[in-house]
């Protein structure tokens, strides 16, 4: 059987580093990014430039150090955040859009129409800077489906190349994931971003990919908020011979052996 070609978006340096207690220096971030690039990771989410000068410095060095991977700058729906990402030289400017009413109401304290309006403004700034735009639907798994469809259509109309569907609190089941990803309107590349709160991030990512997603987000060792993100090594183990990410499992395992001391500085975190 021919393996289907899929692609990895690695978010070790952004979502992964958000694990409580994790902190990478500029040099460590560059080391990790170079390893990911050499492994064949297609896109590296290198961080959030809006975090400050050190993050920007890391970002610029990563951009210079990586030969093939596209470098993503992660942003809230904020023009100043986006300016920082553009200034750091990110290839792709990712805009994270809260999609569930819970996040829109409780966190942003805004309305759906305000979200759509802000998103349009952000997209215009990114196009003016001639950068690739990708849009992420945060908490999409708990969002109202009609609004998800509206956001997907808006993303497409705004010229986003990729739509990230996030199971932000990791509550999906594989069958729900299949049903949901299959229903996403066409003509935009889909990326699945699964969290491991119920221990199903790998299975959910596989179902997303089998239902048409082109990209899966993952992290080294599965690090990330709470119970972590989709673990890249586990994803490769589970899809051997079925899906081809252009990454050798054996090389990844060697690479993780080398990077373990950087990622887990405290043995307590790993235990």
């Amino acid at each position, binding site marked *: 059987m021919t393996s289907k070609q899929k692609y990895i978006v690695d978010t070790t340096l952004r979502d992964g580093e958000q694990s409580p207690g994790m902190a990478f220096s500029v040099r460590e971030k560059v080391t990790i990014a170079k390893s990911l690039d050499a492994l064949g990771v297609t896109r590296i989410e290198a961080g959030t430039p809006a975090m400050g000068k050190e993050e920007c410095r890391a970002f610029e060095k990563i951009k210079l150090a990586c030969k093939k991977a596209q470098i993503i700058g992660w942003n809230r729906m904020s023009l100043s955040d986006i300016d920082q990402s553009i200034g750091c030289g990110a290839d792709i400017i990712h805009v994270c859009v809260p999609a569930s009413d819970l996040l829109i109401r409780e966190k942003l304290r805004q309305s759906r129409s305000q979200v759509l309006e802000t998103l349009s403004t952000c997209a215009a700034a990114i196009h003016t800077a001639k950068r690739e735009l990708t849009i992420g639907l945060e908490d999409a798994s708990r969002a109202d489906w009609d609004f998800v469809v509206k956001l997907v259509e808006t993303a497409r109309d705004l010229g986003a190349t990729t739509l990230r569907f996030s199971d932000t609190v990791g509550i999906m089941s594989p069958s729900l994931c299949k049903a949901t990803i299959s229903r996403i309107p066409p003509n935009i590349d889909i990326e699945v971003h699964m969290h491991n709160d119920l221990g199903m991030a790998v*299975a959910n990512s596989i179902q997303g990919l089998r239902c048409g997603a082109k990209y899966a987000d993952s992290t080294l060792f599965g690090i990330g908020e709470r119970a972590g993100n989709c673990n890249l090594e586990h994803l490769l183990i589970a899809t051997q011979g079925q899906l081809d990410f252009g990454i050798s499992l054996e090389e990844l395992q060697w690479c993780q052996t080398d990077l373990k001391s950087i990622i887990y500085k405290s043995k307590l975190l790993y235990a």
Partner: protein
Amino acid sequence: MVTIIDRTLTTFNTAGMTTRDLNHFCDLLFTCGVTKIELTPDLVSRLGFPANACGLKQWLGNRNFFLTQLHPESLASGSPGMNEPKSLWKLEPNDLVQKNISVGQLDSYQHQKIRITGLEDLMTRDYPSIFKALLGSGAQTLDLCPSNQQHCATAIALEWVLAGGTSISCGFTNHHNFPPLEEVLMGLKLHLPHTFSGDLSVLSELRHLYEALAGQPVAKMKAIIGADIFKVESGIHVDGVLKNPRTYEPFNPQTVGNQREIVLGKHSGRKSLLYKLNDSDLSESMAIPS
């Protein structure tokens, strides 16, 4: 209802386990929603069941047992009793025939009591059709204990129940290659609440006891039971959690006997710092150097 079998105690060295710990471990498993606990003959002898139960042990030779709970109604109707807490427990033989099959080997199991193991690669296959074939195999009992070698056992177990399966075997945390019990239970609680009636708030206590008995720590970020899974550091998430914890929590930490904690670190924002100052009865001005 779904039968949930826990196999944890069959998989690690229990030589040093006291009867008190064994009873406590079983108690906690039943409390969190386990229907049957699989035990080795050696463990059964340590539970202190009366002579007739020990006779059962001799009859079974080296095969394992299931420990189950008696329903209160059956106690009232005069079932043989033992001292508390074991008066609520009974033993029955594990009469499941274990079969490690691959997808291409599905067979007829007419009137048999079967436990299917293996099937670790189901997530990359057409598993709804495979489940349908299994459910139509004519088995009297069909228990599924998928291997976790491909890190998808929880998903397979949950999908099995969603497809109509009525029995699953698990093991606590992920040291056994069984579906992690705590993940399966939470999956059932969230996705099929009508099938679940356990109290998961004992999971934290169960983790502590497990770590002491097994002599190995559970990973801090282990799904459901990891000690650190409700620690929040990043500014964006702290902001959300302080406004409404539901924004970035899949369930209330207390559901699993844990609690949320705002921690300071590289990703902390101003709100985290202010929260911590407030929490320590310190004012903002004290944090700003003059």
